[in-house]
């Protein structure tokens, strides 16, 4: 009984102590922390560039082709004109780095020489068919219905650098998704040189026969360069 009374008394004392006024801590102005050393923030990239997965490449390719499904894109790319621009998707899957689970072939995560050849083959097909569709139609295709060359061109003639730059910028944004003026290299100049050299080569009397005019060949070659550009394949 006595111990019970002691327990109750102790609890009562504790609760009285706990309900007392809290200790008051006087406010004091905070002093700023003194810098001991300064280090610039490291915002550099921490990993090397990676190859865009083959599926993403093909999806983008189809989108550039006008949002077609693979079979229709294959039909359009092959054409019925004996152009031999394209065979079938099946022929390029291994070269593009797709895994083949039937043969236990893993996905290619890095470019190789054959992949570069396949990129060229597919890129050429896309650009040549785009020139045919956008620039060589019997009736002029409105700019907003064009698949790649979404700009006006002076009929037949090659353009100078001033006229080339804004048109190249359209292509640059289409393929690489940012303005050409922000490129880390003098890309507009380099591609203009490529364009003019191609136009000159095809305008020469000894030039090989082409289905395109020299100016069209020039734009086709600019398109090849962008659809095969390292920035198109890496992220």
């Amino acid at each position, binding site marked *: 009984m006595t111990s019970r009374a002691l327990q109750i008394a102790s609890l009562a004392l504790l609760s009285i102590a706990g309900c007392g006024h809290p200790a008051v801590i006087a406010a004091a102005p905070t002093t700023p922390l003194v810098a001991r050393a300064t280090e610039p923030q490291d915002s550099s990239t921490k990993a090397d*560039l990676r190859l865009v997965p083959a599926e993403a490449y093909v999806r983008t390719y189809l989108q550039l082709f006008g949002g077609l499904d693979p079979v229709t894109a294959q039909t359009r790319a092959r054409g019925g004109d004996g152009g031999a621009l394209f065979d079938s998707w099946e022929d390029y899957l291994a070269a593009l780095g797709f895994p083949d689970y039937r043969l236990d*072939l893993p996905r290619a995560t890095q470019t190789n020489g054959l992949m570069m050849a396949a990129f060229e083959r597919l890129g*050429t097909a896309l650009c040549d068919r785009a020139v045919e569709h956008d620039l060589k139609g019997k009736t002029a295709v409105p700019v907003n219905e064009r698949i790649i060359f979404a700009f006006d061109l002076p009929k037949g003639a090659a353009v100078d650098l001033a006229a080339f730059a804004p048109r190249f910028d359209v292509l640059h944004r289409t393929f690489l998704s940012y303005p050409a003026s922000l490129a880390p290299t003098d890309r507009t100049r380099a591609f203009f040189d490529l364009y003019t050299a191609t136009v000159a080569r095809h305008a020469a009397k000894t030039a090989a026969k082409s289905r395109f005019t020299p100016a069209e060949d020039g734009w086709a070659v600019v398109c090849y360069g962008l659809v095969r550009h390292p920035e198109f394949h890496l992220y």
Partner: protein
Amino acid sequence: MFNLYRSPAASRRAFLKALGVGAALGATPFLPMGSALAAEPALDTEFFIFLHASGGWDVTLWADPRNEKRGIIDPATTDNTDTSHLHRWVDAPHDDDVKSFALVRPAGSNLVFGPGIGDLAEMYDRLCVINGLAMNTVSHPDGTAFSATGRHLSGGRVPGASIDTVLASELGPRQTFPLVSVQFPSSYTGDGLDRRAVPLRVGQIGSISKSLTRAGQYDTDADRDAVTALLSREATQVAATSSYTDVLQGMSVQYDGLRRMLGENLQDVFEANRLKKEHPELDYKARFAGGGAVNAAFAIEALKRNVVRCVSFAMGGFDTHAANYRFQAEVQQEFFEMIGAMVKQLDKTPHPTLVGKKLSDHTHILVVSDFCRTPQINMAGGRDHYPNNSALVISPRFRSNQAFGKSDPDQLLPARARKFIDGDRAIAPPDLIATFVSAFGISPRKYFRDGEVVPELLLHA
């Protein structure tokens, strides 16, 4: 000043450092130095063919023949093997009506084979057989990776570069195609490899030709070449502004490689029908090795034209768990006879750059498999996976007409082959790989974590 007694922490660090130096010094004789590194690098005159017998072969039918019941070993017999197409099967007594096979030993040969070797047995004086390879695995992916890289899989990933990639990187980066790999377990992993040597891995040779075809009605070779040259420069320039340059610089050299590739008009080298026409000596109608024969024809043609450094390919049909074991010996026979036909053709082909030399004088062939098959015949009449293996080397730099290593007589398990730096043990794939690359003046330690050079395998040790 190096002071072992500075502080407890320093003492421990210093001790470990000293231990490391000591270990490095102690390991020096173990490293693949000596003769191999002293040799002049072979550079661009040597060619390589790597073959993978996919599925795991039965070594008792060729390299490590067993024709009698002993321990747990059930030999191949007329009961479990279809002998009707085997050139080298000669009945030997086994059990009443059931016959086993007589060992195949051509006159003058130090090597003894089983009938699976086929007519390749006649080339005994050029064959170096490695038996009793310790695989430590019975998993297909793991055994495949271990045979090609000397490393077991790590979390399902191949942790090291394969031998063909290493040789392509060291000796072939300037070649048009440093490495063409047809279903071979080639891997490009690790540091120090040249990006041009990234394997061209394809399911079949013919699929390459389609990517190399170019239309002529629109643009010209000069147009495409100008684009590729520009892109090569772009890759280099963008790399110069990047934190990590390896991938971009690699693309730059690959663009240059593409220009060379297309400039040499190589489509016909990769076209199956043209290859068949060009090399009628190979049996394209063979029941099991018909597809592989196209790859062999490609290897010969590509080496002849000096456009590849390494060709690697695989042939399936060896994974015989059930009644299909009846054809294991025939699969082997077709496989080895395809190799024999390829070597004979290389004998007839002049070296593309060395006047008066045959291609076979500078072509080095390594033949491996996932592992071998169980010594017992299972309930389904086949053999399962077993952690022993054999390999075959055909190379002027290897000692021929000899078998190195052995398996134990009763259980077919790898037996002690020699004293290695880590003690008496059986030879293993890392040792074979280290020895192979060291034969060409390449330090295995640069690329391979494990393995010790086995001088007994090398002609000039």
